[in-house]
């Protein structure tokens, strides 16, 4: 599919069989990880397009894909999602109608009364993203720092604080739930 521009220069190249095989292997090996990464951060109807765009960028920039591609793919996916959110905000601010909540918090889909979910949702977005990268995406601190665009030292500190805040909020919710449980069980005991 080579194509020449008006000045006679080469605009597009025909991929070599080696490039095609490399990309196909990349796609098959990492599709599920990228799909989960995207589904954790946006709503299902927008996720498929974001995953496809992530791999389309990887196809265009195959020469830039590093030997350990997953953190690189996560960075691309993160940027695709950011671009979509910015576009949705611009469209909304210009008076257009769009989905009310483009950046959906996927964990809202989990039962609302779970203490873990409520504790997670109570955190600030930077803390949530830090925990998503480490706990759900399963990245080590070095790769997570790369995806977050932070230094390893900064990310490690951020992760430690996010863990503490999450544990503290979880404890607070559980403490608050105990008196409520006692209050509901006492009349039954008194009546028995």
């Amino acid at each position, binding site marked *: *599919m080579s*194509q020449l*521009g*008006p*000045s*006679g*220069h*080469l*605009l*597009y*190249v025909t*991929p070599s069989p080696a*490039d*095609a095989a490399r*990309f*196909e292997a990349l*796609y*098959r090996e990492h*599709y*599920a990880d990228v*799909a*989960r990464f995207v*589904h*954790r951060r946006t709503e299902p109807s927008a996720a498929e397009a974001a995953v*496809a765009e992530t*791999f*389309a960028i990887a*196809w*265009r920039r*195959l*020469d830039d894909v590093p030997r350990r591609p997953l953190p690189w793919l996560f960075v691309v996916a993160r940027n695709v999602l950011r671009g979509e959110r910015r576009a949705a905000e611009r469209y909304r601010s210009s008076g257009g109608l769009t989905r009310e909540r483009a950046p959906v918090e*996927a*964990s809202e*889909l*989990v039962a609302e009364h*779970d203490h*873990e*979910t409520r*504790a*997670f949702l109570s955190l600030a977005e930077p803390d949530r993203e830090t*925990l998503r990268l480490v*706990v*759900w995406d399963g990245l080590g601190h070095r790769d997570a720092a790369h995806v977050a665009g932070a230094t390893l030292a900064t990310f490690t500190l951020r992760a430690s604080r996010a*863990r*503490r805040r*999450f*544990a*503290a909020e*979880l*404890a607070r919710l*559980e403490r608050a739930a105990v008196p409520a449980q006692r209050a509901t069980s006492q009349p039954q005991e008194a009546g028995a």
Partner: protein
Amino acid sequence: VNPDDAIRRLREVDPVRDFEPVVDDGKLGWIMARPRPSRVPQRRDRAPRDEVGPELPEA
């Protein structure tokens, strides 16, 4: 709540824990049918002579 225990519990509420994405072969073909830009650096500062119009007469 111990932070390690809290993190273990958070792992269990991963919203896509039971989500098993299926590789989409159709999408793979669609992506690979898209052209890949050439990585050869292009000269953008000068158009070919036939794109800049006639030369001005000398003063």
